[in-house]
């Protein structure tokens, strides 16, 4: 028999009930597909008093057109997201790049966006972490990656967030004080121990995708085991070609920092995509990606591969 914290599991049928339950139970956590949270709880990473299971909330599971925009419920599974005809190809591609088919059948869009940050010193069993005097993210007072740091450097490894960022998507958050809409990038802050900006009691309900006529977008990642792993580094790009020059350009990276980050490449606009532009992009990526020793693969490879992947990806979008 496997031990999980002794929790009460609530299964609300509506979003209002879910938000009310969360406000009423201190120390409760939202649960969706469970492929991230339950695995972590089994390793002693978290002691929630209750779990509020969102998989029974019917209205979180819809994909629908709302005027020009596409509204995707946070409870849509990654498998459904990948095969829905209205979902932009770059988003479907990112969804298909997450873990294996069995995970994608259970894991949800909202759960993927709100997944915990990861670190080779954190995603370990209780006894492993204890023998290593724990770490800043959980129970310890020292970061094992950057010894003198007062912040945690655990890395965000979600695949979907960067794709949504280059697609200019927004997230609809519902909390006890009502709903608000933020850009997907604003869901995160670069601190490994508390990387989500959602307020206490807020739940991610819907992702809103605007129409992007004339743009092409894609997502690429590298991983140890191609069939299933988190990205060692991932990059999403969107490009709008204006004749012989770049008319619009957006890029976002994951697997490198404590949050998925947009790469501001405004200086590429108005110039052609050539070797000089590629060198500029490589320089911007070098500055943005602060890859550290948070995975079993060393940082040097991850730093280099993100530049190579980004270049190839823009080559494809430009062609």
């Amino acid at each position, binding site marked *: 028999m496997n031990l*999980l914290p002794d929790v009460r*599991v609530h299964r609300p049928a509506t979003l209002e009930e879910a938000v009310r339950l969360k406000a009423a139970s201190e120390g409760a956590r939202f649960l969706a597909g469970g492929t991230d949270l*339950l695995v972590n709880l*089994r390793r002693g990473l978290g002691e929630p008093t209750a779990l509020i299971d969102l998989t029974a909330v019917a209205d979180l599971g819809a994909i629908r057109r709302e005027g020009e925009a596409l509204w995707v419920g946070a409870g849509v599974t990654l*498998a459904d997201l990948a095969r829905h005809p209205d979902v932009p190809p770059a988003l479907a591609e990112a969804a298909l790049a997450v*873990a*294996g088919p*069995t*995970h994608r059948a259970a894991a949800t869009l909202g759960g993927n966006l709100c997944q915990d940050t990861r670190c080779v010193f954190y995603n370990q069993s209780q006894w492993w972490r204890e023998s290593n005097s724990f770490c800043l993210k959980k129970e310890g007072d020292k970061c094992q990656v950057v010894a003198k740091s007062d912040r945690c450097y655990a890395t965000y490894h979600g695949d979907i967030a960067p794709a949504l960022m280059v697609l200019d998507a927004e997230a609809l958050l519902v909390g006890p004080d009502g709903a608000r809409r933020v850009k997907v990038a604003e869901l995160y802050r670069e601190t490994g121990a508390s990387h989500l900006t959602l307020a206490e009691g807020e739940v991610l309900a819907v992702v809103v995708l605007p129409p992007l006529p004339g743009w092409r977008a894609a997502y690429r990642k590298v991983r140890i085991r191609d069939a*299933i792993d988190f990205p060692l580094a991932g990059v999403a790009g969107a490009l709008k070609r204006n004749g012989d020059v770049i008319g619009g350009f957006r890029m976002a990276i994951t697997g490198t920092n404590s949050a998925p980050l947009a790469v501001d490449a405004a200086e590429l606009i108005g110039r052609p995509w050539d070797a000089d532009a590629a060198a500029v992009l490589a320089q911007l990526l070098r500055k943005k990606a602060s890859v550290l020793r948070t995975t079993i693969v060393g940082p040097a490879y991850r730093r280099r591969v993100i530049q190579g992947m980004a270049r190839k990806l823009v080559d494809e979008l430009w062609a």
Partner: protein
Amino acid sequence: MKSILTLTVNGRRREDLVPDNLLLLDYLREQLGLTGTKQGCDGGECGACTVLVDDQPRLACSTLAVQMQGRRVETIEGLAKGGRMSRLQQAFHEKLGTQCGFCTPGMIMAAEALLRRNPHPSREEIKAALAGNLCRCTGYVKIIESVEAASG
């Protein structure tokens, strides 16, 4: 904390009192005695615990039993009918898709989900559907051939 769980397991409707923090894996293995579903890596990395939930493959090690309320769960024990193995099981037997056997229930359930959705998959589609299942004996070739034999 306990809840009443109503669901269908291998075609039979059940009602059980289960602890809220009980994993689907332990519900099947410990409470129902269906030990065909294997406990492997405990982290969702090996696929040995794959079962079907409403025809979709699902990792029983990272699913709570109470999340199965009203759902249709199938395990490897549900495939044989009247004492005869299913076509897919027979194919794994005849094409040597099984060696030590530990990954086999998960492999067969993942392949079963594929064949229900797509009765004539290509080799690539078989590989993609089994991507989440690890085998440390066969080298996968015999497993893929077994699924092909069952789909022909």
